[in-house]
């Protein structure tokens, strides 16, 4: 894999501008969207994209920072959606319902992590595939959530699209802030060490098992919150929708498109995916998975650093050119 966050040599004023000013401008732009009269369809698309940002940033904590590739994040997304749905119907206020969803998913992540994090290499990834399918099948047959026919949410609050939009925006910002804090923390240092060489990390006092469990729980909680926000918006969920294996693939694909293991890669990847995905599905309903599969192969072959990696390469070339120019 290419150079990642923390592998940068020094930090120039340009990259500081990019990493502080651009996100703030983007945030201001997103916050202004409901006021500029873009219409409900654009807001819906951005709402969906923002929930994807949260799930993608969450996945990146365990998949990108700690290098533990999980195909099973649909489990947490779905658990968040269902817990939120059941809670709201049970009279619990929405924000407490999201929190409950996050807690349920975090507990589930521990149950999955306890046996699977003892495995090394690709075994964790393989185990997550099995868990994801198993949970979907179980949810198809659970009677009190309606099984395969799905579950309807009765939200007492009047539907105001912008409220949902801002909820998703705040959650996405929270996810990015958590990601930045984790990366800068002692835990973040342990995670990168585990990704680079788990045995060497342990030989320096890092407990890899515990570090992975903690960050897996955090990642699951974020994915679940995203699922919860989505459930409350859509008012109807079913196992084939929220627990679908393709959701797990999408959550993994976004950080890879944007730049796995970086702070902004999963955000960029979610925007690219969220916006392109709809167009692709609408125009090539039979071939959209083929298109995304091909995209994945191309990225892994030619730019494992994703969009962020491409940008870093571009900046290095510009800097090299300008320093050559100043010498001549």
């Amino acid at each position, binding site marked *: *894999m290419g*150079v*990642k966050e*923390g*592998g940068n*040599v*020094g930090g120039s004023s340009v990259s500081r501008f990019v990493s502080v000013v651009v996100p703030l401008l983007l945030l201001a732009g997103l916050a202004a969207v409901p006021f500029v009269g873009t219409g409900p369809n654009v807001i819906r698309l951005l709402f969906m994209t923002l929930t994807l940002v949260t799930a993608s940033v969450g996945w990146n904590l365990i998949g990108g920072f700690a290098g533990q590739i999980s195909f099973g994040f649909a489990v947490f997304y779905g658990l968040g959606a269902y817990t939120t749905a059941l809670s709201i119907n049970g009279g619990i206020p929405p924000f407490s319902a999201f929190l409950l969803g996050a807690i349920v998913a975090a507990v589930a992540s521990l149950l999955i992590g306890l046996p699977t994090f003892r495995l090394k290499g690709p075994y964790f990834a393989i185990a997550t595939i099995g868990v994801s399918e198993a949970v979907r099948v179980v949810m198809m047959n659970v009677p009190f959530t309606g099984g395969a026919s799905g579950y309807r949410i009765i939200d007492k609050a009047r539907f105001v699209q912008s409220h949902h939009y801002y909820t998703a925006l705040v959650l996405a910002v929270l996810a990015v802030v958590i990601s930045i804090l984790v990366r800068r923390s*002692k835990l973040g*240092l*342990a995670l*990168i*060490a585990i990704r*680079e*060489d788990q*045995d*060497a*990390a*342990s*030989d*320096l*006092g*890092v*407990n*890899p098992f515990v570090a992975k469990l903690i960050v897996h729980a955090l990642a699951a909680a974020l994915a679940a919150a995203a699922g919860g926000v989505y459930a409350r918006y859509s008012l109807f969920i079913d196992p084939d929708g929220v627990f679908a294996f393709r959701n797990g693939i999408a959550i993994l694909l976004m950080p890879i498109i944007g730049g796995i293991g970086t702070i902004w890669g999963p955000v960029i990847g979610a925007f690219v995916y969220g916006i392109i995905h709809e167009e692709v599905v609408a125009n090539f309903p039979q071939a959209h998975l083929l298109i995304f599969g091909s995209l994945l192969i191309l990225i892994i072959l030619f730019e494992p650093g994703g969009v962020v990696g491409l940008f870093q390469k571009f900046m290095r070339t510009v800097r090299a050119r300008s320093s050559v120019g100043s010498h001549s």
Partner: protein
Amino acid sequence: MAPILKLKNLTRYFAGLAAVKDVSFEIEPGGLVGLIGPNGAGKTTLLSLIAGSLKPTSGKIEFEGVNLAGAKSFRAVRAGIARTHQIPKPFRTMTVHENVEVGLRFGRHEKAAGTTKKAEEFLEMVGIAKLARRPAFLLSVGDLKRLELARALAARPTLLLCDEICSGLTETESGLILRLLCDIRRAGTTILYVEHNLRAIMSVCDPVIVMNYGEKLAEGPPTAVQNDPSVIEAYIGKKATI
């Protein structure tokens, strides 16, 4: 003085092969103990057992009076045992400074070790302070070996396990590392130094332990060990009789 490390009948099998068999010895605190033997003698396996990277099949590892046999390596580190690797295992995308920071923040507790040295100081000690901001994957083999040492030292061990830290280095570079090991020992850290190269070890270590085919062959001061017929046989072979 009570020994800092006491191995009792330590054994490790890989499938049917005994890589380490019934090895027992003691190390006094403050020593610089050499562990030598031909290729495949079981030196690195023994070191990995002490460091907790491998689990022993049977036997005891008593460190400062506590049995560490079977404990994971991060527990051994927190108890005060740190190791370097024969083939460097750097965190490649981290900077050199961050690599040392891992040892510093996860190693033995500052209070227990009684030192508040910073990452820069450990880099300074091994002579790679000027590379602090560089990502580790850009380092040469020699510098990676130094980084291994700086990182292990940053974990503030009372017992440092060095695995062939001089292999692949030039004469001058290994001379510097050997001098550094002597300084570290003088500062109070006990060292168990595994080496393939006899000359390096004979010049700085006392006592020396010799292994062959997984078993302890001899133990004693370097000169005595050097003249031990079984050691000569292990290294050179038997005198041919016609």
